[in-house]
Structures are given as structure tokens and as C-alpha cells.
């Protein structure tokens, strides 16, 4: 191992990190001969101030200061470039003296204000969620992504709110075209107040009429880190605990962070389950209308008679029944969402159990319909990201309407139309839906 000169090491570090916005570099001491370098978002500036900056002026010369630093607990000698970079990215501050470099432990540990992920909870794995502070959030990402190629660009959006927005990406892996597009779009946002990632996401999309989210809004740092490694761009917004990830593909919305933790077989199983759930929640209402009103011959005779029997007392056509119950279900979901936590479960019980039971007994709704509505609701909740969940909730009505008009034909038309529509979507120029499973290269491809 070649011992590098201390000055050379410090220069190299400065060169490597100079385009990081949170890289800080100072000269200390009365004679300005000691160099101090650290990452602002990772290093506890209080520690640096109290134990490094202040003593450097109080001690009589650089020699004494060096001895003081070397004696500091947790201090490491910077032997080579690799150690230096590694420690600096961990949050150590590097001090460069005439002949040696030291790495002082001043790691900022953000634990205050970091809550547990509420919206995307998982069984195992990290529970942290982003906090409201952008510095903290960058710190959380950096702690999980210790690579010098991770870059963060800062911008300000909002004429009044002056919200800080950070674009995070891995310089070595990012898709340049997407990055350029993202910067262009953020710069083009002209508004007064920006407070949430959801708003930002809305301003970043070009299409005015759209149904499907083309960016992920997440509260999980581990999801962000995972996507950074895939070369995606992440946008963090100050005073907001959510990050925006772009570009995204359709299947990203059906990936929970659990899938990475599980045994591969289980992960696959869960993924397939979600797609089955998606299919059911989309088509069940429409299929019920079809079976009950257009094509009772599709099902087995027993099932058809069962439906006919349970519908015998219902005084209105099947689609009224479907829409009535689906609407009730939406009300129930919304109500339990907005209510204070203490009352939420009560609403569900009253609505779900009592209303459902009473409605069938009164003969207003068929038994099968109650089963169906619950199945639709449950399979909708299976979608890991709530944004997609909301979209799917809307889409199923479109399919149901087409089923009223055309029966089975309507359902097939709408499903094919949906696939075509999704294939036509682009997220920052990248195809939104394609079969990534089938991405293999044949011999002789150019």
C-alpha cells in the first residue's frame, strides 16, 4: 500500500466530491493550515463545531491540534483513498494536517423524528419512514447508499413557499434522458406554494387526462435506495415525508418491499397473487352483471341457479345492485379512513357487518352480491401502493359500465383496451407496461 501524501489525499477527496451539494470544505486554525472536509447531511455539525473547530483556534499551533485530534476517541488515520472516501461517506469529518489525515467520528444519527412507515407497512425489514426534514431524508438515503456516485441536486420551487427540492440519482447508473427530462420539468413548475410530493407529482406529469400514476410516491427509504440502484431518479421535497420515484413501470406498483425479503418462491407467489387480485377486483363487478343479465349460460348450471335464487327477491336489475353496493363500499372505505382512529373500526363494523347482513335479510341485495363486494374490496387492498389502489378503484366502474352495455364483450373490450392504453403510456419516455419477464436476448440480436 502506497502512503499518499496528506495534501494529495485531501485534494483527491475534494475533487471526487466537489459536485455534491452537501460537501463542505474549510481551512481551520489561525494559520489556516488544517483542512476540514465533511458531508453536511451526514455529519453532525454540532460535534464538528464543538470538538474540532473551536479547539483548533484555542490550541496554540497545528501540532498541538493534531495531537488533540489523534487522541480523540473513535478517530481513524486515513491510510488510503478508499478508507478516506468510505469514512467520509459514513459521516466522519476528515482533517488534513501537514503530513497526515485523520477521520473524526462525527456521524449524525437521525433518530429523532423518524417514524415508522404507516402507509406501506411490511412484515419484516426496515420500518423507517421519511421524516419531514429534507436533510434528514438525504441522510437516511445516504446511510443506506454509500456510494460516491450518489448525487443530489438542489432546486427551489414555489414563489412563496420557496420549497427545497432535491433530485437524487446514482450518477453511474442513471438514465440521462430521464434525468434531463426531470430537471426540465421541475424547472418548468411555476407555482406559488408547494407542500407535498403528491402535488409535485401532479405538476411533473404532462398529460392532463390521466388515470394511472406514472411516478411512485413512497415514504420508504429502502424503496428509494432500491430504485436508485436501478438507475431511477428520486425527488425529495422539504417539509414532506414522501419521495417521488421516476420513471416507473406498471409492475413497480405491485412490488412490496417484502418481496425482496421473502424466499424467492414466496416472493413470486405473492406477486402472482397480487395480479390475480388485480384481475378480480377489476372484473368481478362487470362479470356479475354479465352473468346475471346477459350470459347466464357461461357458468355451470348450479352456480347460475344459485345466483338466480339469491336474486329472486331483489326488486331492481343486477347493475343497480352492483352499483349500490360498490358505492356503499366506497363510502365505508372513505369513512373509516378519515375518521379518528378510535372510531374507525366501529364504522367498519356497523357498515360492513350489520348493514350487509340486514340488506340481504331485507331482500334488497342478494347474498352473492355481498360476497362479491367484499371480495372486490379485499382484493383491491392487496395492491401495495395506495396510489395504484385508488386508480384501480376507479377503473372497475368503467369496466362495469361497459359490461352493462355489451355484456361479456364489454368486459373483454375494456380489458384489451386497458392493456393497450397501459402499453401506450410512457413514464419519462420509458415504456410503462411491457413484459419484463420476457426480456432476454436471442443469439444474433443487434
Amino acid at each position: 500500500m502506497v502512503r499518499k501524501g496528506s495534501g494529495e489525499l485531501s485534494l483527491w477527496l475534494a475533487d471526487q466530491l466537489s459536485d455534491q451539494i452537501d460537501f463542505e470544505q474549510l481551512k481551520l486554525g489561525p494559520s489556516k493550515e488544517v483542512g476540514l472536509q465533511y458531508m453536511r447531511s451526514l455529519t453532525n455539525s454540532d460535534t464538528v463545531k464543538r470538538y474540532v473547530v473551536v479547539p483548533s483556534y484555542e490550541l496554540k499551533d497545528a501540532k498541538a491540534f493534531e495531537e488533540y485530534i489523534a487522541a480523540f476517541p473513535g478517530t481513524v488515520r486515513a491510510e488510503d483513498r478508499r478508507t478516506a472516501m468510505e469514512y467520509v461517506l459514513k459521516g466522519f469529518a476528515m482533517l488534513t494536517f501537514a503530513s497526515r489525515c485523520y477521520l473524526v467520528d462525527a456521524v449524525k444519527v437521525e433518530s429523532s423524528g423518524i417514524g415508522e412507515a404507516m402507509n406501506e407497512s411490511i412484515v419484516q425489514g426496515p420500518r423507517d419512514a421519511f421524516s419531514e426534514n429534507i436533510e434528514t431524508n438525504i441522510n437516511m438515503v445516504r446511510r443506506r447508499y454509500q456510494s460516491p456516485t450518489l448525487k443530489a441536486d438542489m432546486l427551489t420551487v414555489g414563489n412563496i413557499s420557496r420549497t427545497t427540492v432535491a433530485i437524487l440519482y446514482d450518477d453511474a447508473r442513471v438514465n440521462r434522458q430521464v434525468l434531463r427530462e426531470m430537471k426540465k420539468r421541475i424547472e418548468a413548475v411555476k407555482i406559488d406554494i408547494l407542500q407535498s410530493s403528491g402535488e409535485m407529482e401532479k405538476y411533473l406529469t404532462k398529460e392532463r387526462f390521466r388515470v394511472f400514476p406514472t411516478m411512485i410516491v413512497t415514504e420508504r427509504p429502502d424503496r428509494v435506495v432500491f430504485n436508485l440502484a436501478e438507475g431511477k431518479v428520486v425527488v425529495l421535497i422539504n417539509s414532506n415525508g414522501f419521495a417521488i420515484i421516476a420513471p416507473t413501470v406498471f409492475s413497480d406498483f405491485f412490488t412490496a418491499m417484502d418481496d425482496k425479503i421473502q424466499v424467492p418462491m414466496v416472493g413470486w407467489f405473492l406477486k402472482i397473487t397480487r395480479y390475480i387480485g388485480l384481475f378480480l377486483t377489476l372484473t368481478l363487478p362487470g362479470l356479475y352483471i354479465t352473468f346475471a343479465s346477459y350470459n347466464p349460460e357461461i357458468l355451470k348450471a348450479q352456480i347460475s341457479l344459485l345466483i338466480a335464487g339469491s336474486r329472486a327477491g331483489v326488486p331492481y336489475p343486477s347493475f343497480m345492485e352492483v352499483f349500490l353496493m360498490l358505492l356503499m363500499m366506497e363510502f365505508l372505505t372513505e369513512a373509516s379512513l378519515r375518521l379518528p382512529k378510535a372510531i374507525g373500526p366501529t364504522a367498519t363494523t356497523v357498515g360492513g357487518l350489520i348493514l350487509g347482513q340486514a340488506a340481504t335479510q331485507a331482500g334488497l341485495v342478494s347474498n352473492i352480491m355481498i360476497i362479491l363486494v367484499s371480495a372486490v374490496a379485499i382484493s383491491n387492498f392487496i395492491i401495495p401502493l395506495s396510489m395504484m389502489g385508488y386508480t384501480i378503484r376507479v377503473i372497475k366502474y368503467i369496466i362495469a359500465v361497459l359490461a352493462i352495455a355489451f355484456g361479456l364483450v364489454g368486459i373483454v373490450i375494456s380489458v384489451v383496451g386497458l392493456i393497450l392504453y397501459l402499453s401506450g403510456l410512457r413514464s419519462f419516455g420509458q415504456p410503462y407496461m411491457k413484459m419484463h419477464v420476457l426480456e432476454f436476448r436471442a443469439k444474433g440480436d443487434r
Partner: protein
Amino acid sequence: MKKSLLLLSIILASTSLSGCQFKDIDKRAFVLAIGIDRPENIEKQRKYEVTLKIAVPEGDPAKRSQASINITETAESVPEAIRLMKSRIDKEIDFSHCKVIVFGESFARDNLTPIVDWSSRRRDIQLIMLCAIGVPNARKVIETQPRNERLPGNALILSLGKEGSESPFTSTVYSFDLRRRVKERGIDPIMPIVEARNPDLLISDKTALFNKKKLVEILTTNETRLLNLLRSSNFRTSFHVMAEGTAFDYNLETFHSKYKIKERPNGQTTIQYRISGRAVTEESESGVPVDAAMMKAVSKAASEKLERDVMQLFKKIQASGLDPLGWGLRYSSRHWNNETEQQDWERLYPGLEFQVNADLEIKYTGMIL
């Protein structure tokens, strides 16, 4: 926004185009079985008597009751009879779940073709409808309601199909198969016979053989079993055989039959059947232990008996001039002289000789020797 509004209005417009056809499931009367007879009344001999079994869905699905109604109507044609029935029932008659069609025996002895045409022409009648002959007539069979039946018509469906009891005495025939046999050269239609016995028993253990148009011959219970055995592979049934002075019952585990049509230079044509199977002894009547030698003896006796029985069946079929097993089709499918093969076969058929080689092997003796 304008575009989506336009789209929405087009969809709504097309809804109204089709909206009037919206007919809920509870407004339909599902026909589960249909029976067709000639009226007994002599004056109405040329008319059709149609009986429908219609399921009545009950309000309480937990009860699983077996309510059904049977209605009968006589008219000039089947569609006409159904039109007349519409006025007698408050719901739309829906044939899409019709699983069984039963032809009365007297009707089957007359002419089947118009109904075969009608049932495959109507879009809502499935091609996988089970076909049968009803004795004494179709109406009795349709109206019989066995007590253990949960779903209306289910007993009939299950006894004719293969998913319920796998009876070796029932020849399952779907309507597409019936039609195929009616049309095809070199294979003739067959149908199982269902007999309604008092008070509420349905028995299907005979098979009717048809020429292209009408019922010609009826096979007995045992012949039916042999016919079914030859028609399908891996068929399970048991036979009774005498060997070494005692009676044995054996049960077929696996079974295969294949045949070749051999033509000798002298113009004599032989149909060679090779039958092989594995069986288990089910009962040894006098309790004689079944050792290896005994097993061999029983196998031999069983094979010989099977050969004799099959031979007898073939002779009966040949005498009737019919071809339920499709020998004619096999003959022409192996001959490339397409213009003349049909006439050749017709010439050959009366003089056909049969050769049956049965090779049954009793492999196991059951749980005891």
C-alpha cells in the same frame, strides 16, 4: 376532456342501442332437460309432444330445494311447441343450461333427423348436451324425480354423464357426437336407453343402435357393457367367470382394445380385435384360495369368456347391418382409393369375419389369497 365526453356519450348511445335486451337471470326459466315424443293419440301421430323440465330458483339458497316444473305441449314442430309454452310460463324460456335431451322410444323408431338438426342449429343449445332414449316415453323420464335429487334434473344428468356414477352400462353420448354419427359415412349413431320405473327410479343399462335415421336394434345390458368396453380405454367394470369349477368375480383395472381390418388376397376381410387388460379378483365364490396356478386358470377362462361374448356381440351387430363402432370409417381412413372405398366397404360388410384375441391377466388377488 372534450374527447372523453365524446367517448362517454358514444358509449351511452350504444348502451341505449342494446339496453332493451337486458334480461336478468331471475327473469329466465332455465330448461334443464327436454323430452320429445310422438303423441299417443292416433290422430296426432305426426305431431311432436315436447316436455320441458324447468328449474325454479328458490329465494333461500341455503335450502337447496329441488323445485322444478314440467310442462308438456303438443304441436306441429318442436319450435312451435316451445312458442306455445312461452305463454304458459311467466319467464323467458332459456335453453342455455339444457343438459339432456330424451327421445321417446316410439319417436326414435320413427325419424330422428329433424331434432338433431334443430338442436345443433339453435345457438343456445349446447353441443355437449347428453342424448338418451326414454322408455316407456320421454315424458315419463323427464317427469321422474328421484328423491335423493338435490338439483332438478341432476339425477338424469349424472346417470348419463361421466362425472357421477361411472356405470359401465351407460353409453355417454353428447349431441355433437350424435350429429357426427348421423352425418358420417361408416359410423352409426348409438344412444343410451333410460327407463323410468315406478315410483321414482331411473335406470339406464341398455343401448339403442340406430341407422342414420331411426332406432333399429337394442343391445342388452351385458352387450351394452361390452360395447362400452370396446368404445373406450381404461374402463372399469367387473365380470363374472367360471373357472376350475368355481365362480370368480374380477375387476378390470386397466383395459385396452384395438383392432385391425385385414384383407386377404382371396377377398375375405377380417376384423381382428386385440383386447388386453389387467384385473383383480374380487370374489372367489366358494372361498378357494387363489394361488398362481389358479390365477392363470382364471385369466384364461376370463379371456375365453370375453372372446366368446364379444364375438356374439359382433355377430348381432353385423346381423343388424349397423356400424356403431365405426369400422367403416376405419376402413376408409386406411384406404387411399377414395372414390371406390365406400362401395367396397358396403360390399364387404355382410361377409365380414371377426377374430377376437382377449388377453386378460389377473395380476392381483385382492387383499387375501
